């Protein structure tokens, strides 16, 4: 049971680090936003792994609920970031055409 939990959570940590790397290295906004989402997904994976209690027992519902809350927060932040990015693009296009 511990092995499955460890592997799943470890994969989440790998995603966290990969996302972090991509966020720091890549310049384009879209890649940064995707990187942040991957980083967040990594943390959510860790939470899901903690919830696992073996095949016999039902999972811990608390981390599941935290992940659901986290997803809505992540969606909201991503939406705002994308719109700010689009707005910035518009402003830059206007500057260029002037």
């Amino acid at each position, binding site marked *: 049971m511990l092995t499955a939990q460890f592997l799943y959570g470890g994969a989440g940590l790998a995603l*966290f680090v990969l996302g*972090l790397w991509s*966020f720091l290295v890549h310049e384009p*906004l879209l890649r*940064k*936003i995707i990187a*942040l989402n991957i*980083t*967040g997904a*990594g*943390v959510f994976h*860790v*939470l899901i792994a*903690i919830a696992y209690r073996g095949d016999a027992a039902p999972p811990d519902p*608390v*981390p599941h609920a*935290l992940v659901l*809350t*986290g997803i809505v*927060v992540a969606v*909201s*932040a991503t939406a*705002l*970031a994308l719109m*700010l*990015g689009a*707005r*910035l693009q518009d*402003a*830059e296009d206007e*500057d260029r055409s002037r």
Partner: protein
Amino acid sequence: MSDPLMTAPLVLCIALPLLGALLVTALPRWSVSLGIVSALATAGAAVALTAAVWQQGTLHLILGGWDATLAIALHADGLAAALILMVNLVGLGISVYATDYFHDRLRVGAFWPLWLLLWAALNGLFLAGDLFNLYVMLELLGIAAAALGALTGNRDAVAANLRYLLVGLLGSISYLLGVALLYTAHGTLDLGLVAQRIAAAPELFAVDAAAMTLMVAGLALKAALFPLHFWLPPAHANAPAPVSAALSALVVKAAFYLILRLWLDLFWPITGMAAAMLLASLGAVAIVWGSWRALRAERLKLLAAYSTVAQIGYLFLFLPLLTATPPGPARDDLLAALLLMALTHGFAKAGFFLAAGLVQTHAGHDRIDDLGGTAQRLPATTFAIAMAGSALIGLPPSGSFIGKWLLMQSAIATGQWWWVVVVTTGSLLASAYVFRVLSRAFGLEPTPVRFVTDARAEVPALTLALVSVAVLGLASGPLWRLLELGSAGGGA
């Protein structure tokens, strides 16, 4: 503790601005009047909260009537109450100022709901007693702050606040990973219970230290601790003036408060001198670097933003001193001094930004070199800048004078004399940048005809600046009592 009337302010401080935000969203036509009513009601709840903590000490409320481990708790001690009072009074000032600042109908409609949501997030953050709930509050704060900062819609503001949003998100994710590790190891999310379990399980030092590193690093990013401050100056300098005031005076302070809260209440069994020294050294660099950049800034609002970087640095200097001082009156003094610095900066920086906004609206720009004659055109505003500036320097009788005095006293008492050099350098640089503004503002022009030219906009700035200088400095006694009532001393 269980008297529902006494704990009602805990809930109302969060529910009232939230309800206000909903009403101004649904009825944009009445956003100004509804917004002001909500601001007054929220500030009233904050005063009631402080009074309740004053009368009966720490308030604690478990929401939903479940076991403490399972549910979310709201918690207010003296430290939280004092900061809540500052945040809500400054918030009220910003609200009054905003009624006269925004004129475009669409902008008015966009400002009020986001501002009230930001306010609810601030109060929620100061009162939260649950690690995951703090994450939600941080995100609400970050999203509302970035949206407000981009409100002018010009390119620089959008770019700066997009960066602020992304950096803030990274900070919250790092914080959340720390929370996940703590839940894995200790099995609960309640701040007080996790603190007990950390103290009871010294063999988990490595896990707790890793969680602390992730959480504090994420929050330091949000608190703009050098070298993670790069996002702050453009974001704060390009926002509309009332928003700049809120971001610089309140939002950054909330992130620092959370670091302090974790440091004192959660991780106190494992915090060591090395970590405290690291954070304080970064704070020291922030003081010198931020003040230097403020001195070199060409625009008034950019100067104020860099000054925030420096002022946050002072707060981090207290960490090694708190670690080195054994519990007792000396430590209580130190904590009160820290609080006094934070409160003074809150009032002073808000007043400074509001006044800078007025200068900008009247002159059409905020270039420091072309400020000649501002003292004649806007005497009350210039006076507010001077007052706020003297609080930023730490001149008597401002609250930060007492704060810095106690800080230096403690630095010498604990043998960490080098912080005295940093504080002195910072204060000298601060007086240089404040007097640079004032010397320009007092050009050689005729004596002003009227002191106050535009009451609704000038009075809030003036009041906030006056509070930072006179009220907090001359009447700081109650802070000590408020802190004694709270458990801010942590597990000591």
